[in-house]
């Protein structure tokens, strides 16, 4: 990346000399890659335009009409030259395409260990929910040096998440999750814009991304903790009586949910799809659209009854079902202990109220004792322990 550094430096010097901003800050792992392509194309395209302008000037002067009757000269341009100016630009175009597609492709999927933050756009603000439940508006605190993935949805019109310093951009669409991820490389405060026109106050739908050193982020988290997303989702799950059908029993009327996220699901139509966020979301709101094989279309749809934030919580809960125990350890204990599932393998049980805040990630949590009344179910051969909410 030597040439790039030199170019960036030149740009910044020019900018300082002219007292003009020419170039946005590079604050993400992705930014230097995008800028490298930008400079490459700038060099090629700049070179070509200058060449064309010079050539036109040269011809314009050399072949100017000197007498009113001067005719054009017979000219011969070799065919090879014609082919050259078709093929050479095409090769450059393909290099632009290839490089651009590669960049996009390489960054399309967030790394598995990315910190997931839920983002809701609405006229005219950005709302964020951290996995441990901290919420903020028009401000997003993130740790430096860790991939962060925003899972985004809109409550009304289409918005677009744009952080110039990170060179990322993604539309935020009503009733459909989209995601974007980045890894901040230096602490600082950066612009966050909505770039899709979304109505009167569009220009004020702005905010800041505050990138903090990891320990500062931790401090910030501790200051703003309000209970994990998955926990709030679990409470909702029970309140809405989802647990009435999704019991995990052999005769349960709804499919088994732990471990569902990311798995292939066979539908009644025979089609096999991946259970991603959008599938889970759709199954909550309009369960009749895609029915898992072996089940009847009996689930009521919750469309119109939940806010986007509640849906996010439910999806977070379902995603976290069957995940490794330590990954969703809450920073602060939730206020009311939720009904707790039981099982022999603690790694596959739900996060519950009696998890000790002091527990550190990585250590296997101690087996919890099932509360009275909870019936331990033996693990089915393939699926591990079934949680049994009451």
């Amino acid at each position, binding site marked *: 990346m030597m040439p790039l550094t030199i170019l960036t430096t030149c740009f910044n010097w020019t900018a300082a000399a002219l007292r003009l901003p020419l170039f946005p800050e590079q604050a993400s792992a992705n930014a230097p890659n995008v800028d490298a392509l930008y400079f490459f*194309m700038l060099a090629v395209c700049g070179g070509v335009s200058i060449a064309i302008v010079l050539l036109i000037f040269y011809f314009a002067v050399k072949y100017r009409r000197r007498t009113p009757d001067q005719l*054009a000269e017979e000219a011969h341009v070799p065919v090879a030259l014609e082919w050259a100016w078709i093929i050479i630009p095409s090769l450059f175009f393909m290099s*632009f395409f290839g490089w*651009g597609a590669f960049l*996009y492709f390489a960054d399309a999927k967030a790394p598995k260990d990315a910190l997931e933050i839920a983002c809701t756009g609405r006229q005219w603000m950005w709302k964020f929910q951290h996995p441990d439940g901290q919420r903020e508006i028009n401000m997003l605190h993130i740790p430096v040096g860790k991939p962060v993935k925003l899972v985004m949805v809109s409550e009304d019109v289409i918005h677009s998440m744009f952080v110039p310093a990170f060179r990322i951009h993604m539309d935020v669409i009503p009733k459909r999750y989209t995601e974007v991820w980045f890894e901040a490389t230096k602490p600082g405060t950066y612009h966050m814009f909505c770039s899709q026109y979304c109505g*009167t106050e569009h220009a004020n739908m702005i905010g800041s991304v505050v990138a903090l050193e990891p320990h500062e982020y931790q401090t910030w988290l501790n200051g703003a903790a309000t209970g994990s997303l998955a926990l709030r989702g679990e409470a909702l799950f029970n309140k809405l009586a989802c647990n009435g059908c999704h019991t995990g029993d052999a005769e349960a009327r709804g499919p088994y949910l732990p471990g569902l996220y990311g798995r292939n699901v066979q539908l009644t139509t025979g089609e096999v799809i991946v259970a991603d966020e959008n599938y889970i979301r759709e199954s909550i709101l309009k369960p009749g659209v895609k029915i898992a094989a072996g089940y009847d279309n009996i689930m009521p749809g919750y469309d119109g009854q939940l806010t986007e934030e509640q849906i996010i919580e439910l999806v977070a809960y379902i995603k976290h079902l069957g995940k490794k125990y330590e990954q969703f350890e809450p920073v602060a204990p939730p206020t009311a202990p939720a009904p707790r599932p039981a099982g022999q393998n603690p790694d596959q049980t739900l996060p519950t109220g009696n998890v000790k805040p002091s527990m550190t990630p990585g250590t296997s949590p101690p087996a919890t004792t099932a509360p009275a009344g909870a019936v331990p179910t033996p693990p089915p051969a393939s699926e591990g322990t079934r949680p049994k909410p009451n």
Partner: protein
Amino acid sequence: MIEENVSLPRIHYLNSHYGWKSWLFTTDHKRIGLLYMVSITLMFFLGGFFALLIRLELLTPQADMFTADTYNKFFTLHGVILIFFFLVPSIPATLGNFLIPLMIGAKDVAFPRLNLLSWYIFVIGSLFTLWVVAVGGIDTGWTFYTPYSTTFANTHVIAATLGVFFTGFSSILTGLNFIVTIHKMRAPGLTWFRLPLFIWSLYATSIIQVLATPVLGITMVLIAAERFAKVGIFDPALGGDPVLFQHMFWFYSHPAVYIMILPSLGVVSELISAFTWKRVFGYKFVAVSSLMIAIFSFIVWGHHMYVSSMSIYAGMLFSILSYLVAVPSAVKVFNWTATLYKGSVSYDTPMLYALGFIGLFTIGGLTGLFLASMGLDRHLHDTYFVIAHFHLIMVGGAVMGYFGGLHYWWPKMFGRMYPEWWGRLSALIVFVGFNLSFFPQFIIGYLGMPRRYHVYAPEFQVLNVMSTAGSSILGVGYLLPLVYFIWSLRYGKVASNPWRAKGLEWETTSPPPPENFLEQPIVTEEAYNYPTRPAQPGKQTGKLTGGLNPPASPTATATGTGREAEVV
């Protein structure tokens, strides 16, 4: 250069009939061309007025002239008016209407009454839209993205979309008329590869107009239906898909940008040839590339949607196709440059506009390459970089071409010249103003300023001030021609073919008689058959007779070999 001793023909299309009825009920394609010219000029200055208001507001980072709501209405009207009521009809409806029959040696277009109807539809559509402006405007942006436009905007969306819907018919009918005319009414001997390049480009444009505009019409009706009757097509709250709208919208609007630019490419080919007295280099390629661009333009719409949750693979396909469509455009630029080589280049106003066009089109096209790259568009999408890109191409490119064409064919239309010095000055001012307006916007865009913001972060200000300064200069550059063109109608020097250009349209008198040619012309040579001198300088082998002296009567040159240059 101005010809000596020319006089206006006694009877021509302008004075053959009198009274307002003879204009409003005319079926003469030349008069209809002028009717269009008057109406779109009004729309041009109205849309331009909104542009200046927008730029004035952006002089400072705060909102100090208009409220957010007013600003949003202004940029919407600016876009709707200039795109649908100026850029789309500009060259085809004015120059195209006027020139197609003249350039192919026909008496009129194939369906003269349909032609008049198109103009009426256009006027009704514009009046409808002006009415929307008067009663309170619309604030969706010219892209009408859903579900904002269907559910959330509380402005006059239904009326505005119906206005656009109406105008679409005008576009379709004009395209249809041109296709039939070019197929059926060419003069004897005028084969496809003898056609002027302007005709080729209008033919390609017409194909797009006929095939793409209906999709826009349907989309506009669906928006109106969804707002009015709450059918769930685009609004997810009603079970619709908001991204579907973008697919439908860009399926029209991407090809539409080529409706705006292809005719300009044709005009520039004519100008370059006429002011170098040379055949356009690689004539066949330039001709066929217009068609290729038209066809490819239908399958690249997805490059507007890289960040709209479209699949990566679809994105890659759209990306590579976008680069393919850029190849013919790039090669055209090389061909024009090569045409200058060993030409006899003169610098009259139209040529200055044409050269300015090449500059702006090249920058505009090359910056399109940045946007077509998925990795870069993820940063640039919906920023000022996009604004700068499409203004260079469409306003820079299309309007430079339109102005160049107007200056070139002005003496053909009215038999009089505008003051040459003022013409050159206007070309220069437009070019300088243009670059000053839009070049800073590329930088603002890369810095990250999103489009459609009426307030912005203070660090973007310096560049915004430059841009606003440029747009005032540009405004002057656009107003100048309006003044001297009107002046020239009465006081301009009489001229018939001041450029000594070739082409059937110059074979008849200026202004032409009502029936274009007094006798059916017969074509025996390809377009741009200018005589040349051999490679060693000094010796001239040919003599350009073309329009040096105005034809005594149109019949004299309109017959067969009369068009042949006298080769010594």
